């Protein structure tokens, strides 16, 4: 299995193919369809990360046999959903430690950094924070 950074590099290489913004968005729209479907029971306020621009639902489960965190998520906005699909591809199925230490450089490299600015308020930045919090919590639980 590839490392977290190998996946990030893969994504960067995929996006290099698109020099036009519309093509990049088109690709994100396609990716939004690949996102592992979140169980509808998690699409509640409890799992909602509220942004003023778009909503994100996130569920993180710990697979004890493999020692990895499985992420599922959704958004009401498609471009946000496409970016979530990328984040899930990079961060899901990873150990809590890997997630905690992850430096998500691919977002900047593919030109989507503005989507993670605190003022954008689309839920993505909070989503990453939340994923890292889950990782810290599961990490602490594992080492008890």
């Amino acid at each position: 299995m590839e490392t977290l950074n190998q996946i990030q590099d893969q994504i960067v290489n995929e996006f290099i193919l698109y020099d036009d913004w519309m093509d990049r968005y088109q690709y994100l729209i396609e990716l939004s369809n690949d996102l592992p479907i979140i169980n509808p029971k998690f699409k509640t306020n409890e799992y909602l990360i509220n942004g003023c621009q778009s909503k994100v639902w996130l569920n993180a489960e710990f697979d004890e046999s493999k020692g990895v965190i499985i992420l599922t998520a959704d958004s009401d906005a498609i471009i946000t959903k496409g970016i979530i699909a990328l984040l899930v591809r990079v961060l899901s199925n990873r150990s809590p430690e890997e997630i905690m230490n992850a430096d998500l450089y691919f977002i900047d490299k593919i030109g989507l950094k503005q989507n993670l600015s605190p003022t954008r308020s689309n839920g993505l930045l909070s989503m990453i924070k939340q994923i890292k919090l889950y990782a810290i919590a599961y990490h602490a639980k594992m080492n008890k």
Partner: protein
Amino acid sequence: MNFNVEEIRKDFPILNKKIYNKPLVYLDNGATTQKPAVVIDRVHQFYSQFNSSIHRGVHYLSEQATEEYEKARKTVQRFINAKHDYEIIFTSGTTGSINGLAFSFGEKYVHKGDEIIITEMEHHANIVPWQMLCERKEAQLKILPFNNKGDLEIEKLNNLISDKTKLISVTYVSNALGTINPVKDIIDLAHKQNIPVLIDGAQAIQHISIDVQELDCDFFVFSGHKMYGPTGIGILYGKENWLENLPPFQGGGDMVDVVTFEKTTFNALPFKFEAGTTNYIGAIGMAEALHYIENTGIHSINKHEEEILGYATHNLEIIGGITMYGTSEKKSSIISFLINGIHQYDAGMVLDKMGIAVRTGTHCAQPVMQHFNIDGTIRVSIGLYNNKSDVDRLCEGIIKVKEMFS
């Protein structure tokens, strides 16, 4: 004077800018307007040649700066036809004006059980300060609703008013729906029962000719940056009688008469409400923006913007598959809509990459979104420099969005 939008556009340097290699189409004027070169130059000139603290020094520069600042006050007075220049208070903006007044008015006149009336279509800046006041004083906030067209249900106002009503605060033009409210009727109705009225003019002052004496409003507030002036400057107009009797909302330098540790007496109007070093350069820049509007002619601006609003509304309807929010007969410069089945954020993201600046979201008016049970809209807001080509580019953008997401 003849209004020529292509000539007007030359006055605004930023309109030459390319965004993602495409000419900028700026349709977010409800959030803030761009600045004409005369305003930018004035601010630059002031910093480079006249800068000095106002109302303080005996020296040449300070006197010059003070004179220009007070001239700016007179310009604002003339622009809204206030009776006296000391009825014009410089603040940080509309939000600053309302917060200040809510505090000041609340301290003096609002007690437990009293009521303040606002409307369902207010910007958060005309909701939250009153909520904070009501919480502080155990008073009650009452809401005048609007109908699905976006018109205030004005016939309900009389029933909402009681002998506990202390103030009515209402927006002239809704920032989320574009409705022009019948503020004169509201003021007249309120005055029959001796209730003062505050008009939030943030979305009106740049589009509609304002005469505060004719309106007979007790307070009128607006921001410089939404009327082609600098940011961080705004106006609180109040009738002399009210301002004389209200306590200051901030303490500090310049607003005082005599200070001892036992007691402080306050300066006269308008200085009583202008504590500390004010944004005097903002005020001077704002006055320049007012000159610019005066020279262009507010009626010409209004006529041009109405034409663009009509053209845009018509063309969006032709595209089809669009739901409009705010369909009042009386609208000004704002179109709020959703492309059916497409999230406003997705639309905004794609439009952005086509060089088209619109706003998406709740526009700081969440109750308006709750009324329609939606999470937000796309808002197109027109300024004096927008032309039909801007609207055509917007429509092309929307067609592209529809292609991408359907």
